[in-house]
């Protein structure tokens, strides 16, 4: 029933009245959210506010107990090839990176292409890593040395691993970028470098939704979403985020450094 032109104009991600139950209290409650191409959105809230749950719903890892998820205007397919194609357009930068420790850098980069590869390529890549040129380019984009391609992931430093995870994310060629507290464990210099990279990648038709627990890195975002105890507290332009809103978001805690 969806007409293609409508789908193209639709938000990349739309959440309607999403609720997720938790053990003692709901993790998300009747949450509405839209993200359109070109938008760079920060998701703010203290730990336990439901940021990770929201991202898991957004990337399809978690099915909400109530409400509707729409990707480019379409509900998630149940399974099969169509679903995989939908998933391939959503890229997630995980808090714990989720690199495959036993494989080489190049094999890890190529793991992002598995949605499009059949068995022959997937198996061959485990013997003779494929698409060296594209992988080298992905590393160069993240200012990593292409000589690392043949190295095992375990040989990389913490900063290199972070960049590799970014390179893998982009090699997936997603249009919706999700990032779960990617800056939390980084020193300030690395954090601002990574943030700049992510913001630069999030040009239309792409969009970015990134979760943060500190409000001091909002520069460069178009919109900020405040989440408290699973409820949407505010959804506004970055400029409108002031001390009063942050105090409301974090309760009695100080509103940022």
């Amino acid at each position: 029933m969806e007409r293609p032109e409508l789908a193209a104009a639709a938000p990349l991600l739309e959440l309607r009245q999403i609720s997720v139950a938790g053990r003692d209290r709901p993790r998300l409650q009747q949450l509405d959210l839209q993200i359109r191409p070109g938008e760079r959105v920060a998701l703010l809230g203290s730990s336990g506010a439901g940021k990770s749950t929201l991202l898991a719903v957004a990337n399809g890892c978690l099915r909400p107990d109530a409400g509707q998820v729409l990707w480019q205007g379409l509900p998630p397919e149940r399974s099969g090839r169509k679903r995989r194609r939908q998933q391939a357009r959503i890229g997630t930068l995980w808090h714990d990176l989720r690199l495959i420790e036993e494989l080489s850098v190049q094999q890890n980069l190529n793991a992002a292409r598995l949605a499009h590869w059949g068995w022959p390529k997937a198996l061959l890549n485990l013997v003779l890593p494929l698409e060296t040129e594209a992988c080298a380019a992905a590393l160069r984009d993240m200012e990593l040395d292409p000589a690392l391609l043949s190295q095992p992931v375990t040989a990389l430093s913490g900063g290199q691993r972070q960049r590799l995870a970014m390179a893998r994310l982009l090699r997936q060629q997603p249009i919706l970028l999700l990032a779960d507290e990617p800056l939390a464990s980084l020193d300030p210099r690395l954090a601002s470098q990574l943030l700049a990279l992510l913001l630069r990648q999030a040009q239309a038709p792409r969009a970015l939704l990134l979760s943060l627990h500190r409000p001091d890195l909002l520069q460069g975002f178009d919109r900020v979403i405040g989440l408290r105890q699973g409820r949407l507290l505010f959804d506004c332009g970055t400029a409108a985020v002031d001390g009063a809103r942050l105090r409301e978001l974090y309760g009695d805690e100080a509103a940022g450094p």
Partner: protein
Amino acid sequence: MRPAAPLLLLLPALVLVPLLLALPGLLHGGGWDLIADFSAAALTPSLDPLVLQSLLSGLGVTVAMALLGWGTSLFAGLVLGLASSRTIWRTLLGQEQPAEVIRRLLALPRSIHELLWGLLLLQVLGLQPVVAVLAIAIPYGALVARVVSDLLDALPTANLEALRASGAPAPAALLTALGPPLLPGVLSYGGYRLECALRSATLLGVFGLGGLGTELKLTLQSLEFHELWSGLWLLLAVMLALETGVGLLRRRWAMPRRFGLHQFAVGRRGREMVLALLALVPLLLVVGRVMGVDPAALAHWQPLPGLASGRWQAVLSLPWPQLVSGTLLLTALAAGLAVGLAPLLLLLTAPWPWARRLLGFGWMLARLWPPPLTLLLLLFVLKPGLITAALALGLHNLGILGRLLRESLQDGNPAPEQALVAAGSGPRLALLYGGLSGVARPYLAYGAYRSDVMLRETVVVGLAGAVGLGSQMLESLSSFAWDQLAALLLVYALLTLAGEDLSDRLRRRLLRQV
């Protein structure tokens, strides 16, 4: 170009190619109606009270044999394990030499399969309960001893040295420093051995030592499939209860999983563990009493013909190269089948949870079902020979390896696999890249160990005829050719010791590269 971890895991499955090619030639045409009857009978087991009563009493005997053999092996293994620990000797006497000597001596009982012990003791002592108990206790005790001493010698000794330096006497220091960390590992291994003991006791029954195994074999041979399935379901229930019980205790006491594919923090409720161990003693005594196990019977040996009168010329003229190569080929085929098929089947069933559950159930039946019975079943449709024997042995071990692989995937980190699914890769490729990568090396290391076990187990499928040392041994046993048997046992033991050494090296290499 070196194959990456997950691919390494699939390489053993290449053995399927020659197996599948050879299979059509092995079919002898008939017997499918029997297989159909057998399968259909699974749903309609016999509920005749007489049948059930006889099966239940057989099951009781099997469980009692398993329990007694296992209990004896556990205590004997603990003592022998302490006696063959380098750390113990170093602390008590300041030298490690005696540990080495005892270790070497224990290799011999370990290298001979419990079935051979059973058949040998049967010849010497006649048919009585103590035979099956000893048959299990001897090789198991030596195995437990090895595990205990390996665990002991791998423990860090800093605590021990600190205690000694502060003037504690050696025995007290050993008990305080090494007891608590050792116990969970030993009990975890012990729980696993109890499962093995139940399988072994059933197997011994198949070869005539009494209990449920004997009933199963008789019903299969007389094609009473409904009665056969009644026995199988009963055995399955006991095995399920046992596996569940051991699993519960493992969690309650935070014991490491066997062969530690993943390291957990270990040990909780130490006092409870010790009490449980002590409570075993009266239990075993009562069971032994009820079973009529009489240690005095051990004194009454039947006289054996002296080996000096052996006809050694005839022994030498046995086809040794064929026997040895047959045994090795059988082991390689069965090992490739078992090690390689488990990940392959998990990959194939990855998208369907119901297929996974079905597979888990199939594996359970496979490890429950003694290999010689599988062999008899296969012989309904296949010609006897090496490949048929390898299938029977491989399928049984597939049940064991498959369960281990599934458990270790469940315990492992699901995050990489989940991330791949979220990025749009299919469930199979996500499992291959994200799931199997992490477990590949420890699983293969366990596979190396299991191959060594399979080498020892080749004797149990010796019924398939002309498949190496195992079948020759069964033949020599039944014709009372003691000279042949002695020579065969010696060669077999040497072979299994060499196999053990090889699998140890392979295992260390695999685990070092993690």
